[in-house]
């Protein structure tokens, strides 16, 4: 409550003081042509600029009103000479910095009796510690450098000043700059080239061909000022010191500066040159360095369609005409307007559109300033519809990086409706589906639904009874996998079985051959023993052959009688001391051969 009362008192006091000040300056205000305050709404800590244009060649100070809570300070005076109806008319422009000391609404009285008071609204800066607000930063144009000191050259013959609207930019961002070259008449012989940037980390657009010419008083000395406007763009991130330099030829005074004050009092350059001696000297005049921090564009959130445009842009689109016959060309136009690096504003428009033939777009740029920082880029694309009916062209979009919001943004135009009529004389042209036709939902049911697609869709399909319960492919369904596994196991088992059977047969054959070989060896040993009448060796061979014969018999069968007799003989030989078979070798040998034949493996 107290703050409100104090604020009202402050406003009333301001109005009273302004009234008094207006009364005092009434006489001096007779020659004031105009007074402009810009901006009219600021925050505490910022300054506004009051530009007062007065009539007359003299540089006498404008009598400024005194407003409580406002600090008004003259920062620059410029003299201009205009020719009106053949008569020269001198005007003086005075730039006054208006700095509020507290928040509130201030009223500056009109500097002419008929002028309206100028109102300045000052609010508390609530953006401290937050991201820079869109309006605050955008409202700070190149004029934010008002009051920056002018650095004169060593002998005070010239100055060069580079003015940037801000000191923190992003890679690729276009930054409008103002380059002022002040030349003291009589002390600068020639300008030998246009100002150039001293840093290779920035690109500088072409300077305006004809610089603005004006006059300005700096430290009581008049200068002819050439002003160029251009745009710089940083090419890589980092912190840089930026300045411009310009080659000029000056007339350097031979007398010490302390002794040249009299010369400076002589306003006319001719008198100055007569009084003081000078020599020509080529110098490179440099501006005071300006520190600039260049930030890299963030990679997070970068749209796929981002083409490098940095700035603030709007989008609009139109289709001309909105009704045409099938086969006739239509022109789809997209306009991207705003401020930024328009050379990186690009769009493929509509690359592919079903039922339409699309052509590559063409673009043109129309700048609203001399440096191409603000303007409008127009894209135009030819489209030809191949099918009659009502169609909706999809919205066009454009992505860019907003350096104020410090994020990527995508602006999208509205979808465009178009009606395509059948081509004249083409009876085969398909009739556009109507709302009552089956499958006409292309145009039917979507009316009124925002963003609904009403054209170009192919009609519905007839739905059959068959279907699946899940979209998961069979190969990922457990029953199919289990069945496949069972099949594979079955094949593996069959293969194992087949391989095992083949192995058993081979083993039996090998065993049979081994057995046959052993019997042949035993028979040979028996025959040799019979020939040598060695009853002991004969019985050993006979035992082996009889065992083989018994093993070959089926279960329950007994050996033949001869073999039983031979077995008895062998047992007797084995357990008795005297061999009883010594006398009848041929008979027992025959029996032995029979046992060997019977014992052969099948």
């Amino acid at each position, binding site marked *: 409550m107290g703050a409100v009362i104090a604020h009202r008192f402050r406003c009333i006091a301001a109005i009273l003081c302004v009234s008094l000040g207006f009364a005092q300056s009434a006489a001096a205000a007779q020659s004031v042509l105009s007074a402009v305050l810009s901006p009219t709404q600021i925050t505490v800590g910022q300054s506004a600029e009051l530009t007062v244009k007065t009539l007359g060649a003299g540089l006498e100070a404008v009598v400024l009103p005194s407003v409580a809570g406002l600090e008004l300070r003259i920062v620059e005076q410029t003299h201009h000479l205009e020719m009106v109806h053949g008569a020269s008319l001198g005007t003086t422009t005075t730039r006054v910095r208006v700095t509020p000391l507290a928040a509130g609404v201030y009223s500056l009285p009109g500097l002419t009796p008929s002028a309206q008071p100028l109102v300045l609204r000052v609010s508390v800066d609530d953006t401290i510690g937050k991201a820079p607000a869109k309006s605050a930063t955008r409202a700070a144009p190149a004029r934010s450098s008002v009051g920056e000191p002018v650095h004169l050259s060593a002998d005070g013959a010239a100055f060069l000043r580079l003015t940037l609207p801000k000191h923190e930019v992003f890679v690729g961002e276009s930054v409008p700059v103002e380059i002022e070259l002040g030349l003291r008449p009589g002390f600068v012989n020639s300008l030998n080239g246009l100002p150039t940037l001293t840093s290779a980390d920035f690109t500088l657009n072409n300077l305006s061909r004809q610089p603005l010419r004006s006059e300005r008083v700096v430290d009581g000395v008049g200068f002819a000022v050439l002003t160029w406007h251009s745009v710089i763009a940083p090419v890589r991130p980092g912190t840089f010191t930026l300045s411009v330099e310009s080659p000029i030829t000056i007339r350097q005074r031979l007398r010490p500066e302390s002794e040249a004050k009299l010369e400076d009092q002589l306003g006319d350059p001719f008198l100055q040159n007569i009084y003081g001696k000078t020599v020509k000297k080529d110098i490179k005049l440099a501006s005071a360095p300006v520190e600039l921090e260049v930030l890299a564009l963030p990679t*997070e*959130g970068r749209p*796929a*369609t981002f083409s490098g445009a940095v700035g603030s842009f709007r989008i609009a689109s139109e289709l001309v005409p909105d009704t045409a016959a099938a086969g006739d060309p239509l022109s789809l136009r997209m306009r991207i307007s705003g401020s930024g690096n328009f050379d990186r504003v690009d769009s493929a428009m*509509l690359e*592919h*559109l*079903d039922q339409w033939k699309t052509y590559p777009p063409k673009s043109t740029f129309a700048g609203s300033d001399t440096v191409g920082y603000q303007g409008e880029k127009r894209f135009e694309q030819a489209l030809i519809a191949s099918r009659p009916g009502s169609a909706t062209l*999809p*919205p066009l*979009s454009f992505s860019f990086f907003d350096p104020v919001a410090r994020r*990527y943004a995508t602006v*999208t135009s509205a979808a465009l409706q178009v009606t395509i009529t059948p081509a004249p004389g083409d009876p085969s042209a398909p009739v556009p589906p109507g709302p009552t036709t089956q499958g006409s*939902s292309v145009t*039917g049911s*979507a009316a009124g*639904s*925002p*963003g*609904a*697609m*009403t054209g*170009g*869709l*192919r*009609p*519905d*399909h*007839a*739905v*059959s*009874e*068959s*279907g*699946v*319960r899940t*979209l*998961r*492919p*069979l*190969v*990922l369904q457990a*029953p*199919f996998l*289990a*069945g*496949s596994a*069972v*099949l*594979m*196991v*079955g*094949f*593996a*088992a*069959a*293969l194992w*079985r*087949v391989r095992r059977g*083949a192995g058993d047969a081979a083993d039996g054959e090998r065993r049979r051959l081994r057995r046959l070989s052993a019997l042949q060896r035993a028979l040979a040993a028996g025959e040799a023993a019979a020939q040598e009448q060695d009853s002991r060796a004969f019985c050993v061979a006979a035992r082996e052959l009889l065992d083989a014969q018994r093993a070959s018999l089926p279960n329950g069968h007994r050996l033949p009688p001869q073999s039983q007799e031979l077995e008895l003989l062998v047992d007797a030989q084995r357990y008795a001391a005297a061999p009883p078979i010594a006398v009848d070798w041929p008979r027992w040998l025959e029996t032995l051969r029979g046992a060997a034949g019977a014992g052969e493996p099948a």
Partner: protein
Amino acid sequence: MRLCGLAVIGFVLCGVAPPLRAASGDPAPALSAASLYNEGNAYARAGKPGLAVLNYERARVLAPADPDIAANLAIVRGAARVSATIPGRMTRLLLLASPNVYAWMGLLGGVLTGAGVVALAATRRWRPAAFVTIVTGTLGVAIAVANVIVWWPTLHAAVIITPEAAVRAAPAPMSDALFSLHEAQIVRIEAEHEGFWLVRTNDDRSGWVAVANLARIVP
């Protein structure tokens, strides 16, 4: 051979019987390419490109070679300003039929290969025929495996179904938003955690998205 017979019977009981049971009165709704396609058309007309693309993609799982699905999918994507990867020639060849057809082809190839191998081991009488059977069967299995590889990304893909989906740095609602995804955009799901999916986009950006913002193509 008796074992092979048993395996075939077991496969029939395990693999074919459930679908037959389903067809004979299972309450689960039957999905078909036509019904999903029509549903996609309805969503497209209603101005919901995310759900339209979702249903078209699902219809394409069952009928990959349907030209109407591809055409409407392209239209909806174009309207939503969403790009899609164009499959290569080999991929298009592998997408001529549904994955289920290729699955049966792979199974048949497995049967032929197994029978050929068993015949080759059992007898030498039909050796050339067994070789041809093995080669044919192996080719069928290879085609089926290639089809699975082609479809594998789709099995882990999801469609953004809300107008904007914030992609966050961590699976928490108050986590920092890294970027946003547009409706109808397709992403790859890599992990899941408490109501959030870790997704990766085509341009290799990743982050966590709330489950409510997207739907799997193959649930």
